[in-house]
């Protein structure tokens, strides 16, 4: 019988299995932005540094110039080189996450979407996990994924020279770093998103958080004060990244201070999210 002749029918469950709620939210949240061409262009641009680095690795390995590659610097294939690469991606991280993440909760608050979500068999953790998954996906798309590809490229070109380091150690370090930093960054961005109902305001606050704190740290550095570096939002993650990658610290800030800062705003973000993400808005 054609579907339009049947009227309302009760649901007959099939054999198929349903996915976890957070994964459904992440899946939908990832697919929708990827339909925008200019966002794809931005992602492509974010891969340009990786392509350049890949080219350098290719030519140096082909030329047998392994000593150069194992040294420090952005183009090297040592841990320092990959951490520098991740640092260099910060503009794309900022821009991409601002575009994708600013409206994730703000739009739901504006359109009463939270009420819809929480009329389903869904917990707060499912909802936030799903939204954080979207941010984490795009974060890893321009950080972790290029590192994996570059490591694989280096290994395929010169398996003997690069060995286990390229196949396992660096990818593992990058994975740990990107997942930890990405989760924290995602929670902070979602907390900003939950504070407003308009994406543009969230973007402004996000810009202040990323570029503003970096500018303040730079001004402090120019004036000879290193203590202001503790305010540099992304800088703290890179500083802690030096522990994961086993390289010298990136800032003149104690690692404990960096850890305290990162933990501090992550906990603050979770507190804000618990307060703000509710199906009902309480107006006192």
């Amino acid at each position: 019988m054609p579907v339009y002749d049947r009227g309302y029918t009760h649901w007959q469950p099939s054999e198929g299995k349903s996915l976890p709620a957070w994964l459904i939210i992440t899946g939908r949240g990832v697919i929708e932005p990827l339909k925008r061409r200019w966002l794809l262009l931005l992602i492509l641009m974010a891969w340009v540094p990786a392509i350049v680095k890949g080219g350098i690795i290719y030519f140096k390995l082909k030329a047998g110039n392994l000593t150069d590659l194992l040294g420090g610097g952005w183009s090297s294939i040592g841990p320092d080189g990959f951490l520098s690469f991740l640092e260099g991606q910060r503009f794309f991280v900022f821009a991409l996450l601002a575009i994708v993440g600013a409206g994730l909760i703000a739009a739901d608050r504006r359109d009463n979407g939270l009420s819809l979500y929480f009329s389903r068999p869904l917990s707060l953790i499912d909802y936030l996990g799903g939204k954080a998954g979207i941010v984490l996906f795009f974060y890893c798309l321009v950080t972790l994924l290029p590192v994996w590809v570059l490591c694989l490229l280096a290994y395929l070109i010169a398996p003997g020279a690069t060995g286990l380091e390229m196949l396992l150690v660096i990818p593992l370090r990058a994975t740990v770093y990107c997942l930890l930093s990405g989760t924290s960054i995602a929670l902070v961005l979602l907390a900003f998103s939950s504070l407003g109902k308009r994406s543009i305001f969230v973007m402004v606050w996000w810009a202040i958080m990323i570029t503003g704190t970096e500018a303040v740290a730079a001004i402090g550095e120019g004036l000879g004060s290193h203590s202001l570096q503790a305010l540099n939002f992304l800088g703290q993650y890179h500083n802690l990244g030096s522990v994961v990658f086993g390289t010298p610290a990136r800032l003149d800030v104690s690692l404990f201070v960096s850890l305290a800062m990162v933990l501090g705003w992550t906990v603050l973000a979770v507190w804000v999210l618990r307060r703000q993400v509710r199906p009902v808005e309480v107006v006192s």
Partner: protein
Amino acid sequence: MDGTVTKVNPATAPRDARIRVSSLTFAYARRPVLQDVSFGLESGAIGLLGPNGSGKTTLLRCLLGQVPLPAGKVEVAGLDMASQARRARARLGWMPERGGVIPGMSGVGLVAYLGELSGLPSRDAMQRAHEVLHYVGLADERYRKCEDYSQGMKQRLKLAQALVHDPAWLFLDEPTSGLDPRGRVAILELIRDLAWNKGLGVILSTHLLADVESVCREILVLREGRLLARQDVDGNAREPRQVFEVEGFGDEDAFAAGLQRLEAQVTHQNRLWLVTLDLDRLGHPEKDEQGGYRAEVGTGAILEIAAETGFALRRLRRRPVTLAEEFYHLVEG
């Protein structure tokens, strides 16, 4: 609109879909919104009435388990909403008054997405989305972006998303809000069909009494957070004191004296006599299946008096008490 195929899902078939609310008290920021509300519902269409701010929407949110329940108990389908709200919500459909569509998604995409979040496998969710969108009359518009929908289409879409997982109960918050008369009738027809023909329980929260009259069999009336009354929509038929409209000509004094023998109260509106009778005083009046008094009990007695006194009747009928009159009587005391 009536479906001829009825597939019954054992997971959501009627079984035990009762709602039990006992001594529910709730406050927003120390402002009491619901106070000691208790009732039980089996199924069918129930109207939730009350003035603005009386706690209708909050009561629905308590039934959905969207707010913590500090005092009292709410059970839906045998599940305690304080501890098992997530499980219970798989059997509940919610149509919010405000917002309720996610911009950027097509109609079918939104409904399928929310179906998946309700626990349907992906393929089932998509199939159900198409079915319910056909049912609510959005078949041709289902691939359009939600934000491009008209108000009437958005209301239908919200109804579709509430239906996609085949809930046992539908909670509808002002479903006809912002609709033109034609759109309003269409939505009410759908709701009526679901409640009366498809076996879904419906709680319709609204301040439009006509909507309730056209869909519901029973009403719950809230005022200032308290459950003021619970009664059938045609509850006036159950009251022994009823008003009859009489118009005629002849010996008015004799007719009036005859009515006095029935202990009737008589008032006049121009040429119309409003005769209030206590039907219990007329012996053992016959009642209908729902326990309501048959109108013939009163009209028969008046006819006898008219025949005795030679008063020629031009009009004689029981005066229908509208839900509006009943509502204002309840709410305003």
